């Protein structure tokens, strides 16, 4: 299995994502933002960072990149796409995921270990979150719909929703389930030395879509 990790000018966590996939037993390579050819890849990660400086609005410029055009086609064909932090913002901007990410309720960037509950299984994951614009937001009707269709993938555990996300939502999928976006960083939870290994579970979930 080979994963492609997009690299925009201003990406920060793309090498970490490549490293994480390798630790998780897969292969990964960087995909330059001007590449349109995703042949040979089994899945795509849109990584964290500040693509194009996050000018205008987080993710607003990256969504127009040639690589994102290719990712839209890749997702439409059922390929697994994981958006982490800025990648989640990009996927929302691109319309590949529902909703939007607003500035944190306390209006400050915050980096800390958070606990997530995996919807469905109830599994509890300890993963770092680090963002200034991670407050998940969508109209109530849409939130109802997401919950009804099982598109909420992760919620912040009690006391861990520090950014003010609607209904404690930390991550969502598209209707088909092959595109997942979340604000916390599973690629920074793959090594016991740096904190926890709970992030591996997120990568396994994405790999499961392939099977």
């Amino acid at each position, binding site marked *: 299995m080979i994963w492609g990790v997009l690299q925009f000018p*201003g990406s920060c*966590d793309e090498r970490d994502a490549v490293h994480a996939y390798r630790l998780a037993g897969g292969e990964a390579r960087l995909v330059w933002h001007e590449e349109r050819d995703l042949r040979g890849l089994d899945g795509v990660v849109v990584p964290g960072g500040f693509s194009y400086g996050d000018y205008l609005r987080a993710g607003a410029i990256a969504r127009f990149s040639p690589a994102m055009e290719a990712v839209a086609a890749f997702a439409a064909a059922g390929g697994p796409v994981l958006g982490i932090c800025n990648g989640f913002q990009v996927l929302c901007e691109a319309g590949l995921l529902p909703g939007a990410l607003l500035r944190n309720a306390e209006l400050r960037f915050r980096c800390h270990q958070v606990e997530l509950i995996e919807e469905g299984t109830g599994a509890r994951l300890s993963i770092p979150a680090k963002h200034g614009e991670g407050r998940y937001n969508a109209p109530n009707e849409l939130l109802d719909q997401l919950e009804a269709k099982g598109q909420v993938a992760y919620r912040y555990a009690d006391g861990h929703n520090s950014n003010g996300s609607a209904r404690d939502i930390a991550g969502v999928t598209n209707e088909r389930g092959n595109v997942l976006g979340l604000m916390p960083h599973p690629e920074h939870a793959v090594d016991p030395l740096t904190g926890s290994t709970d992030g591996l579970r997120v990568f396994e979930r994405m790999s499961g879509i392939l099977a």
Partner: protein
Amino acid sequence: MTVGTPKHRELGLTDHEYELIVEQLGREPNDVELAMFSLLWSEHCAYKHSRKLLSRLPTAGERVVMGPGENAGAVDVGNGYAVAFKVESHNHPSAVEPFEGAATGVGGILRDVFAIGARPIAILDSLRFGELDSVRSRHLLDGAVRGIGHYGNSIGVATVGGEIYFEEPYEHNCLVNAMCVGFAKTAEMVRAAAAGVGNSIVLMGASTGRDGIGGASVLASAELGDGDDAKRPTVQIGDPFEESKLLECCLELLEKGLLVSLQDLGAAGLTSSAGEMASAGGVGIDLDVALVPLREADMEPFEIMVSESQERMLAVVEPERVAEVQAICEKWQTGSAEIGVVTDSGQIRILKRGDVVGEMPVEALVDGCPLYDLEPVEPGGWIYGNRATLAPGVSAEDELLALLAAPSIASKRWAFEQYDSVVGSRTVRRPESADAAVLQLPESGNAIAVSIDGNGRRVACNPYAGTVEAVLECAQNLACVGAEPLGLTNCLNFGNPEKPAPAWQLDRAVSGLADACAALGVPVVGGNVSLYNEGPDGPIYPTPVVAMVGELPDPARVAGSALVAAGDAIALLGPFSPTLAGSELAKQRGELDAGLPTPDVEKVANACRVVRDAVRAGRVASAHDVSDGGLACALAESAIGGGIGCRVDLQPLRERGCSPEEALFGEGAGGFLLSGERSALEDLGAVVIGEAGGTTIEIAAGDRSLVVGLGGAESAWRSLGERAER
């Protein structure tokens, strides 16, 4: 004709310095030349009041890869890899505009590190503000923390540690010192010397605008005072996105071997980078200002030469490789322009569309500035104020809570959670979980630890002893995580060196730094000096900020500072004989005075070795050095961190002659607080003083014995954020 201040004085040059310039040029300088001389002959660039003192510092060592004089120092970490590091001040810009001042401070120090071909892997910051009850201090704190976060987070370099102190003398002149640590293959590192007559000079990165004109001379080399609002245009504006592209571009260029040399543009912009490159290489440089990409078309040649616009680098490139270099710049969407050529003239020539608009000998410009001897005079006692904030006669419990809540001691979580501490996947110990930041280096198969320290109040009490202590504290912090020191860098933040008392402080502090480093066998691989840190009320506390990098073989063995398990023994190790001199308690009581005992460096170094070996062997559960607020605060921090209480008896310190108060809250170098198995601790020669467990911090200290609930201690210690945002 009106008679005003001569132009050279407005630019910060003395009459004597101006005469020297005329003598070296053989004529009066024109405006371009005068602007360039005024910057390179400023304190900030020429180190004219400190260079003589700095020659005292020991700079040689087996592991030194690059020493002072390069963009950053570097030490060998084995397996063909090196770690580069440097600290630099951005004090005055931050005092005028804290967000941009701190942000560009981070941006500048990052460039210094990637200029030598190292990928930045960590940022640390050392910050000083006035007391937290001042509106101005809270404004500066908030702006500086946001600025550091903005730049570091956006560029994807982890901010892994630092320190913040709040003291009245920093009220008008805050300190913002930023440190960057980089990692490189030793063989791929590059120096800043220009070489190869006929080679091209390529300016990369952002275009050049009018921001930051005169920053080094007007802002960094004079005291702050009234009218600082007018200096706001001398503060630069940072763009971390631009720098992120420039960083990746430069690293790719170096990896492909396309650059002969590389230098960042910092203070004094093109003037200093071109001057220093030419000087280091013993060559000349011709630059045509008409070839520099500008933000504003009508900029004068002198403005182009002194602009401090951020996110720019200057490279020397062989002519046949320029096209390849420019293609890579284009890939990274960063600017590049061939603006000049290396010559054998020994002159810096500034041209505008081929016409010479300035011409100066490199040597006169870079090394011609006179170096001054200080005229130090020891002041007759304590020259700073005293303000009692603690009512007389309060209980020992209330004293402990007041110390834990002191902004300088309290948890800095509010600040460090605004920084990305995990990007890069190297951070083994996040802020506050251990005494030093620990970063794993899988490429070289080991890890490094980094610590940054400097307690200005204690240096004010005795500049020599206080500076020795700062070095020892760094060494102790490294020992707590099992690291062996490899090298040290520093930023010397002092008042006006032309005044007798700050001159004396600087002189004594440099001697303390030199002696402590020599005794520990730690080379000084670089440094930065920030003078003229004064406000209307006088100089800041003399503040040598020292930063040390150490190596450890196995990051899995790193000890944290928090207690680990109930039932573990708690022990004290090291030559620790605390006194109240210069302590946080003395400050709160309004009893600060000159004088501080000089620590025994040899004994502390031995204790560091014992702790380091024990941590590496996995023989202790936790290790924490005893620092601000004394042993009681160190115990409370370890207890709060672990969520486990403790019960100890300080009788062993009483036997060393300490009063109950000194045993509890006295400060001094050399103390380690360890926990673990009783027999293992005793084998190390540590004195067991109690045990972990329960939900209270219980300390027997004669008539000052105390019991404080863990919850109460934690609320006091965690109160900084609430007060910072008040």
